[in-house]
């Protein structure tokens, strides 16, 4: 089950990227209320905690230089879309098959 959180994380990351894209015109045209500065601190803190956690955990397990770590990170990032689509496509197919089944049952 270890791979499951990887699949889910990559799917959420791609989903978040797509949703952020939808959000862009609203931000650009100033159609949203700007939140309080205090509310953005947890986001920044969470990002840095994740970054430090990755660096520490990776260096504990794998004896590599920082450059090699960066390379590993790039390679890991590059499969994001592949993993997300691999996780998402079977679900889509399943949903399509079930909707066809429902239509047949109704018809």
């Amino acid at each position, binding site marked *: 089950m270890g791979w499951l959180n990887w699949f889910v994380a990559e799917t959420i*990351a791609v989903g*978040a*990227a*797509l949703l*952020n*894209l939808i*959000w*862009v015109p609203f*931000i*650009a*045209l*100033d159609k949203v209320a*700007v*939140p309080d*500065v205090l509310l*953005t601190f947890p*986001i*920044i803190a969470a990002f840095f905690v994740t970054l430090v956690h990755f660096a520490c955990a990776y260096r504990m397990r794998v004896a590599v230089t920082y450059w090699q770590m960066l390379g590993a990170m*790039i*390679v890991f*990032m*590059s*499969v*994001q*879309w*592949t993993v997300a*689509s691999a996780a998402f496509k079977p679900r889509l197919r399943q949903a399509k098959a079930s909707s066809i089944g429902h239509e047949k049952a109704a018809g």
Partner: protein
Amino acid sequence: MSHTTRIVTMPQMLLGTLLAAGAATIFAVNVYRHLEADLFATILLLQSLPFFSAVALVWLERLGDRKLKSRCCTSGNLRPNLKLGRPERVVFQSRHAPLSTSTLTAVRLGMWNEFAYDAYALIRLSSDNRQRLSGQFKASCFKSRRLREALTRSVRIRCQTKPENDK
């Protein structure tokens, strides 16, 4: 469309470009320099990194392929498919091409059947052994057991050879 010009990472390229363009737009229109808007733009840029890295890796792979092609000229299939045991026609050009780390690792682990570039690797190895390798090879020459034997004992790999100028 040829293999070299086909864009295999089109969705990634599209999404990455859209995210980067969105970030640039927000940076540009945020004249009052709201920290939150700038932060959102930075996040968009960070989110585009995985998509761009996928594109970058594909181009890196192609660059590697091009370098290999400049060393080894092949006719017929560009990448010999040894798993299927097809006879391949390989013309060897560079006789002193160095071995890559991945090739050496594959040799050490005995992963020849799983390794995608085993034919190239064999050509490189043979170049180190100063063996003339030009002409038509039979897939049986590349069987992993025989190859390992050839590597460990440093014996000559038996195959049909032609002089290099017989291209």
